[in-house]
């Protein structure tokens, strides 16, 4: 980025809000995904007015801007090309209002997801969407990605919990979308904005719903001797009329990797486990826990254990939420997917993944949000071996082919970003994509905000990933994780 532009940018954004030295910019070359690119400059957003000035400046000089939260995204959404400005909302980290009687909170985009639950738990409320990176990821980033998490099975993803936004558009205009009320008159642009992956505007204020803490929680660990039995249980639970708060599955290989890393209390000799959580009134939880246990045993579970206390429960969840990190310990590189399949197809898909794993001689670990059919197969390989690298890519494509054949989706919660952009034509027609481009142009006419994301312009190939960013916030007692 040339020095005159940088000088002007510092004047517009504030001197302390701009990073331009290479060593500083390097910290912003990656996110949780696989792409790397050092941006031209990093600007810290401080408030809507300052962001508006930066956007007007960038717009006038045709400089691309890429919004960024904590950089935990898994699809390259926060990666900027070398002439672009990364606009970080990390310093806008204030909880502006906690309004318990109306079950709302108003936050700045840089507030860390778990921090909001930590701040509201004393009133008996929490913020329900719980991505595995919730100790680090920001609510602004969650809004951009429409993030999910294990507990979204019963409670919904980010879009079901956001009622209002303040947004700065690429032309610098500051707009309101929605507010504190559940609904309002006119088009639901709030809902449309959530999940737009930073291509429509930069959020500067977010109004979210807070959820009442459940009276009781039961966390069950169902242990299986075959993966098929575990997969069949998922289908059987769904059909039993019970919607657990969370229904997660880890296969044997993965739970051994997790056990080696964090000692969550998973049985190392099992072929697979289901982590099932039930919550609500204590009568409901008691009945459902019994019913679910019966379904598991019917589906040939070896054993069903119930977390005896909060510490055991936290340990079980720690295992699930650090699964990706645990894999990082045992394999030089891995590639994960985020496909979603109809729930009845979980057994068939697992069998297919097993077949693909054997075909290429690559270990594939499976950790699923099984309850809603959201797969995260982890393909392990050594990036230094060109054959393995090529095979991992082929295996990945074969899995995705299978997902698409079942009428599934290429991404359940990680977003398209740049990583899955070349898969979009497999789900959407040219006309579908053109319609999306037209709508993007309403907000972002020159595609200067987060260009080359979501909607394909060129073909790209991607692989290799690294460890997740370190946790910034520790959970406090009583906050659901």
């Amino acid at each position, binding site marked *: 980025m040339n020095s005159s532009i940088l000088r002007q940018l510092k004047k517009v954004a504030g001197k302390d809000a701009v990073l331009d030295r290479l060593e500083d910019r390097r910290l912003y070359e990656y996110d949780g995904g696989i792409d790397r690119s050092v941006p031209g400059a990093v600007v810290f957003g401080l408030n809507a007015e300052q962001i508006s000035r930066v956007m007007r400046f960038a717009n006038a000089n045709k400089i691309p801007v890429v919004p960024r939260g904590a950089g935990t995204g898994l699809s390259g959404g926060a990666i900027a090309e070398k002439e672009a400005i990364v606009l970080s909302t990390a310093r806008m980290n204030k909880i502006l209002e906690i309004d318990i*009687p109306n079950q709302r909170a108003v936050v700045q985009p840089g507030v860390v997801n778990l921090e909001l639950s930590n701040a509201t738990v004393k009133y008996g409320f929490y913020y329900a969407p719980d991505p595995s990176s919730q100790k680090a990821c920001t609510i602004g980033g969650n809004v951009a990605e429409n993030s999910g998490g294990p507990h979204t099975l019963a409670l919904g993803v980010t879009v079901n919990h956001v009622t209002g936004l303040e947004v700065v558009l690429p032309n610098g205009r500051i707009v*309101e979308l929605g507010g504190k009320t559940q609904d309002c008159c006119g*088009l639901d642009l709030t809902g*449309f904005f959530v999940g737009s992956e930073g291509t429509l505007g930069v959020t500067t204020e977010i109004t979210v719903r807070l959820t009442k803490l459940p009276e009781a929680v039961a966390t069950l660990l169902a242990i299986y001797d075959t993966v098929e039995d575990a997969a069949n249980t998922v289908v059987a639970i769904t059909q039993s009329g019970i919607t657990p708060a969370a229904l997660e599955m880890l296969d044997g290989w993965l739970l051994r990797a997790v056990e080696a890393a964090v000692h969550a209390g998973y049985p190392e000799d099992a072929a697979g486990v289901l982590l099932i959580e039930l919550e609500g*009134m204590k009568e409901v939880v008691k009945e459902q826990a019994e019913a679910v246990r019966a379904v598991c045993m019917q589906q040939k579970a070896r054993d069903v254990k119930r977390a005896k206390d909060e510490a055991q429960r936290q340990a079980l969840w720690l295992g699930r939420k650090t699964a990706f990190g645990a894999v990082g310990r045992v394999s030089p590189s891995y590639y994960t997917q985020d496909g979603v399949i*109809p*729930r009845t197809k979980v057994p068939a898909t697992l069998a297919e993944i097993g077949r693909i794993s054997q075909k290429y001689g690559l270990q594939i670990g499976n950790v699923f949000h099984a309850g809603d059919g*959201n797969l995260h197969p982890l393909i392990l390989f050594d990036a230094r071996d060109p054959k393995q690298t090529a095979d991992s890519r082929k295996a990945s494509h074969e899995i995705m082919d299978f997902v698409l054949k079942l*009428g599934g989706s290429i991404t359940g919660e990680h977003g398209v970003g740049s990583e899955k952009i070349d898969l979009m034509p497999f789900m959407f027609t040219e006309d579908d994509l053109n319609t999306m481009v037209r709508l993007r142009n309403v907000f972002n006419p020159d595609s200067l905000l987060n260009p080359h994301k979501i909607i394909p312009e060129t073909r790209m190939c991607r692989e290799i990933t690294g460890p997740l960013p370190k946790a910034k916030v520790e959970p406090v007692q009583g906050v659901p994780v």
Partner: protein
Amino acid sequence: MTTLAIPTSLDRDLAAIVGDTHVTQDHTEINGITPALSVSPASPEEIAAILRLANERDLVVAPSGEFTRQQVGGIPERIDVLLRTERLNQIRNYDPGDLTVSVGAGIRLADVQSALGEHQQWLPYDPPHQKTASIGGLLATAAFGPLKSGFGGLRDFCIGIQFVSGEGTIAKGGGRVVKNVAGYDLMKLMIGSYGSLAVITGANFKVFPRPRQTRTFVCSLSSLKDAIAFRNQVLRSPLTPICVELVSSRALEYLCDPPVAHDPGEYVPTKPVSAPSTEWQLAVRVSGSDNVLARCRKELGSPVVRELEGDSESEFWSWVSQFEFSVLDRHRNAMIVYAHSTIQNVEAVAQALERSALDYNFFPAMLGRVATGNLVLAFLPLPVDPPAAMQYANCASAFRALLPAGCSAMVTQCPKEAKAYFDVWGSTPTDIELMRGVKRALDPKKILNRGRFIV
């Protein structure tokens, strides 16, 4: 009102797209406007052809389902083609094991529910006219019912949508799986767009296991203040009701079949006049086992005056859902307002209704989903002194002026003569310029529902 002269070849051209038998003269009136022609296409391709024709000839098209909410909104500029989705009435895919269903826009909600019911599943969705309303119409108008308290609205369970945009492009958003972030969320854009952006041709939903047992506890409170305090107590309790409905005493008169409403204009000098009732009811519906119901009974305590179950329970909730139309059946000239407020502003909205209605010679009645703040308000006219058109406009403005900041109030029903004098949609916190941009992007020539919606 008149309709514009149509080029004589139009019916021929439309017939070439959909076949002779599917182009008719329809005399259904929409806010005083009679469509010139009515056409029933059988596929998205036919709809695209119709819309392209409309773009070429600058014809105004009104998409329509089963006419349950067609009168909502402003007066259409004109309607050259009424586009009916009634032939898109298939269940295209339903796998009970996956708990997802995908249907054509023209299918009736009741038909979807009965297919789901065979597998003890349902859409937890009970808008007005649930027996006749079409899925497309319900999506377009973002209709909702009492179950919104516990399950959210269409935006929470519509997982995919198919449509033909105003300029005639067949497109879709979302998919058939319950979790999906690929591409923009076009479901949210279409839900509540009142047919102003596109013609919805189909949608996919996640469905839910039907509760095996529900019970409704009707609680009686002696004032609005007490009712709100009790509502707060319910919201703070561990209970997880599927409906939390506040009903004013006058609204209660419409929750039966036929309504036994006291005619507001009834005046019998010899009859002793009793003071108006100040009773408010809070109806709390819960699902669960006998143990769960027993716990609810205990937690709710002494305000419970009635328990409803079985047929009488479902009948009660269908009356609640149908409230606004029961009012309109009895008072053709009533004004119905949907108010969206925060949870704690419900009381202020009720007070605003009371004050503005009485100031303008209406009687107030209201009910609503008070766990979420979605309220249905009725302004009942006095037959002895029928309101003038301007009176609706003045009353609506007075009501809106009394609302706390952040609330929005749209007038969903009022005499069409009154609509000329005010904006039925009212204000919204959401940026209007962006809404207009979205309209231009999908329907640049404004051929869809011109004059009806906010954009």
